[in-house]
């Protein structure tokens, strides 16, 4: 049939009309999906994704993660639901592992210094050349074989990378020193002294009824924040009655913000406050009677000197409040007292933590549900050895190492990217002393401040490219060995054998091989070491992964991201209650006195960047601080009324000066209503001298102006014991913050969004 023009138009028009009617009926919804953000026609996804389990390291407790990989590229990090520490949850820092892997400023191949040390001029060399240079330097040392000629500074690690490091350094009778920016030496000492424990415990927050926390910013950055937050969610709105959190601190932290009751204490007086609470509990008979007797040595310790009325002035907390909290703590069990952070970072830090953790004796919180849960020794012998041999350096230990450097005793210094030159107080003088060390080399993926001061850089894989294991810094109360596997091929693999990055452990093993040192590892690379570790666990035939043959077991531990045995808990034995100290030492501070208009400086770890470890990652730089919403810069938090008196407004650039660190640092003022009047707070993380486009030359480093005051007993750095003055420099700089990015919501006073009491709606 011939189609006339008119018939054609009628047919087409009718069809179009039909399509429009169909559309109106909602039929083409699928078609609209195609235009949704998920599936734009021009970039339709055809690939499939794989998720691999591995570990996110060092913040400071590892998290188990799964990584989405498409076509050989890592795309997304999420928590591993099986991993006992974080159970599917994860921090912003774990997410940013992707930007570590694909960071534009990664070191792409071995580099040797050209010109003066620290000038920043490098030439790329091949791996064979680089290893020959290291071997040559170490051969000079091994001829002499004196103690301490070789120093290796790494992050604290109980892992098979740690096993390799430990065996390597032992071959030289050298020093392996674990570097921890805001050290937990006092905390570990207290665990040993009070409870006989060699490692940090778990805190059973989810089963606690009353949580008393002193200085420990555990919801933000302290020890294992994701694990604690997981417990906190249940503590608040789990199946049990809602728990009560009382936070005692000398600054207003994120944990303070989440507390039911927030108590400000004078810096360094946390221990005195805890003793006073012990006095209330013991004198009112609310505590466990046996513990109450033992804690005073049967009356040998005079508790009355610490009665609330006697300490109210020194602590800055009213006697009524001390009594109230102590009574609530003792009568709302299970109760738990934790302490750390700034509370343990004074010249009397060990005393403070001793008094705080002693509270747990009185409420039966020692190795009990809702209290402290002890952690067992690592599951394998080699990990147990690595843990036993690991020396996490206190400031006193560092002082000794630095003295050896100054004296010219140290011939070779190695670091692993943990960056002590950035994080140790300038007053300790590591940077200056390093000029006396003939050879410094660094295994690092970024040109951090310490790596920038080295002679040779051996570029390291990032976490997502290498094999490894990890025993969490604070375990979950039972044995865990996390397994780390490469989820993608090394990013610079295409540069060939002589360039690109390598695992630090593999490099150390290769160097040992060239030197003819037998590390006794029964493997030629770290993958072999990890596989041997899995074989040891396979032979145990217990725990979360069991199989008939090793192949299946190996697949199992890699799929699940690790191995753990919930039955393998600490053998606590009998914990005897230790007697309290007879006296309460007062904290000492360095710097101008309060009468000269100075403030206590209480620095704190950045929520996202920690103590600077995340400064090269743009997501973490751009993550707003929870309280100020500030990003990308260093700010100083000051009480808003004090600021007004001193004519300091937000954005004013101020110079923060201590008696240390030269001219001090500059920071942008951020007055807010939560800061105590005699305290200023500065976040850590910025002020890098090197570190690539995102980190370098940004803000100031508060660590550089800290006094080198140490704890009287342990030699731990008293990083909250510095006093500073503040002066305006005359500049104004906008603080890059998210606050005011959007207009505030209008608040409706009739629409209450806070439930005042548990029964009020």
């Amino acid at each position, binding site marked *: 049939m011939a189609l006339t023009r008119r018939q054609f138009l009628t047919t087409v028009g009718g069809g179009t009309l039909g399509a429009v009617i169909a559309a109106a009926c*909602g039929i083409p*919804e699928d078609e*609209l*999906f195609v*235009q*949704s953000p*998920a*599936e*734009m026609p021009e*970039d339709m*996804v055809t690939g499939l994704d794989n998720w691999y389990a591995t570990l996110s390291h060092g913040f400071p407790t590892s998290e188990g993660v799964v990584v989405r990989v498409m076509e050989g590229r*890592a*795309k*997304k*990090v999420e*928590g591993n639901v099986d991993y006992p520490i974080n159970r*599917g949850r*994860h921090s*912003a820092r774990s*997410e*940013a592992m*992707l930007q570590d*892997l*694909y960071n*534009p400023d990664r070191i792409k191949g071995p580099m040797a210094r050209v010109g003066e040390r620290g000038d920043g001029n490098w030439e790329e060399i091949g791996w064979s050349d680089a290893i020959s240079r290291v071997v040559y330097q170490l051969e000079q040392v091994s001829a002499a074989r004196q103690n301490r000629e070789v120093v290796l500074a790494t992050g604290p690690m109980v892992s098979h990378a740690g096993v390799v490091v430990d065996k390597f350094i032992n071959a030289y009778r050298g020093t392996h020193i674990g570097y921890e920016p805001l050290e937990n030496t006092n905390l570990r000492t207290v665990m040993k002294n009070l409870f006989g424990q060699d490692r940090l415990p778990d805190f059973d927050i989810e089963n606690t009824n009353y949580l008393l926390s002193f200085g420990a910013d555990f919801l933000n950055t302290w020890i294992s*924040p*994701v694990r604690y*937050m*997981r417990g*906190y*969610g*249940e503590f*608040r*709105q789990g199946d049990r009655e*809602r728990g009560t959190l009382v936070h005692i601190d000398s600054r207003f932290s*994120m944990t303070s*913000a989440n507390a039911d009751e927030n108590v*400000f204490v004078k810096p360094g007086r946390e221990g005195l406050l805890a003793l006073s609470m012990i006095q209330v509990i013991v004198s009112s008979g609310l505590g466990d009677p046996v513990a109450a007797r033992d804690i005073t040595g049967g009356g040998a310790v005079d508790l009355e000197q610490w009665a609330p009325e006697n300490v109210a002035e020194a602590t800055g907390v009213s006697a009524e409040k001390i009594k109230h909290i102590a009574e609530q703590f003792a009568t709302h069990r299970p109760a738990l007292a934790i302490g750390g952070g700034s509370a343990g970072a004074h010249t009397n830090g060990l005393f403070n933590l001793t008094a705080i953790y002693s509270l747990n004796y009185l409420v039966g919180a020692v190795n009990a549900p809702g209290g402290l849960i002890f952690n067992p020794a690592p599951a394998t012998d080699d990990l147990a050895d690595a843990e036993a041999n690991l020396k996490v350096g206190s400031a006193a230990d560092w002082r000794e190492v630095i003295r050896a450097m100054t004296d010219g005793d140290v011939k070779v210094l190695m670091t692993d990217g943990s960056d002590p030159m950035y994080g140790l107080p300038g007053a300790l003088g590591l940077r200056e002393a390093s000029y006396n060390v003939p050879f410094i080399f660094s295994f690092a993926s970024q040109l951090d401040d310490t790596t920038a001061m080295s002679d040779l850089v051996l570029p390291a894989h990032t976490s997502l490219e290498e094999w490894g294991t990890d025993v969490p810094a604070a375990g979950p109360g039972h044995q865990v060995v996390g397994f780390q596997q490469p989820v993608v091929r090394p*990013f610079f693999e295409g540069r060939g054998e002589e360039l690109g990055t390598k695992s630090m452990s593999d490099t150390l093993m290769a160097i040992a091989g060239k030197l003819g040192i037998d590390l006794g590892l029964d493997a030629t690379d770290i993958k072999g070491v990890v596989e041997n570790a899995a074989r040891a666990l396979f032979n145990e035939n217990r725990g979360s992964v069991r199989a008939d043959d090793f192949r299946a077991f190996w697949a199992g531990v890699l799929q699940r991201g690790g191995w753990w045995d919930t039955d393998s808990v600490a053998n606590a034995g009998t914990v005897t209650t230790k007697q309290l100290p007879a006296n309460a030492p007062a904290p000492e501070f360095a710097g101008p006195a309060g009468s000269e208009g100075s403030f206590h400086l209480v620095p704190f770890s950045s*929520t996202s960047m920690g103590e600077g470890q995340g400064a090269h990652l*743009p997501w*973490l730089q*751009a*993550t707003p601080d*929870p*309280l100020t*919403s500030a990003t*990308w810069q260093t700010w100083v938090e000051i009480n*808003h*009324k004090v600021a007004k008196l001193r004519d300091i407004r937000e954005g004013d650039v101020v110079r923060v000066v201590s008696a240390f660190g030269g001219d001090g640092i500059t920071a942008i003022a951020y007055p807010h*209503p939560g800061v105590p009047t005699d305290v200023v707070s500065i976040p850590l993380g910025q002020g890098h001298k090197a570190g690539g486009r995102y980190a370098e030359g940004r803000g100031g480093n508060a660590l550089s102006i800290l006094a080198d005051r140490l704890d009287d007993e342990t030699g731990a750095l008293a990083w909250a014991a510095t006093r500073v003055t503040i002066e305006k420099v005359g500049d104004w700089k*906008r603080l890059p913050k998210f606050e*005011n*990015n959007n207009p505030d919501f209008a608040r409706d006073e009739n*629409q209450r969004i*806070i*439930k*005042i009491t*548990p029964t009020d*709606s």
Partner: protein
Amino acid sequence: MADEKWGMVIDVDRCTGCQACVVACQSENNIPINDEGLFNQQRANQWIRIERTWEGEYPDVKARFMPVLCQHCDDAPCEPVCPVYATYHNTEGMNVQIYNRCIGTRFCANNCPYQVRFFNFWEPEWPESLKNQLNPDVTVRSRGIMEKCSFCVQRIRRTGRNAKRDGTVVEDGDRALNPACSNACPTGALTFGNLKDENSAVAKLAEKEMHGENGRGYHLLEEMGTHPSVIYLKKVDPTAEKVTEEAHG
């Protein structure tokens, strides 16, 4: 009509303000890097943000946190003002943005009482190596385009497609279905799911807290009548009375 109405319950009593959700969202959704300049221009882009509110002052001071994202309103003020139908309501209760229709009038952002729509004032830029991380399921938006939280629609679509292929159904709480923010949240403050499925965790929570005795549920800016798909649960604070009274004199 679809069998789904996606919704979220946010328990403010669990939220600590840690920002894990914020970074998880940026990673999943190819949100441009918020550099220092963008913050200074007040043009930073965060599909989910944590609002912080001060109450009182030292020594009786409180800070409150509240995660805010697109509320996926049933009566969304952003939808009727779009001259090109770039923002519309789909049958699953989501407020959806079609990037290749958007012409950047910003009327929608102007009309959104929750301030959760973000405009690309600049062409997003990543250093070459960082582009390897970009999520292939999500379009990179260009300059002049409005964007906002999509409840990670790409995950909903992917799990739906996979279930169809495998002859299964998408289960409540499937981590491949949940938005990135919800999976990340360390305290479990964000519960996502199908409000039409009465057995889903989100529906049970919504029913209990919105209609149960002593429920803590409410909607953000409820008086606007936008009927959001996001339900907030009140913060519980036995000591709040004192601080708020003092704060208001």
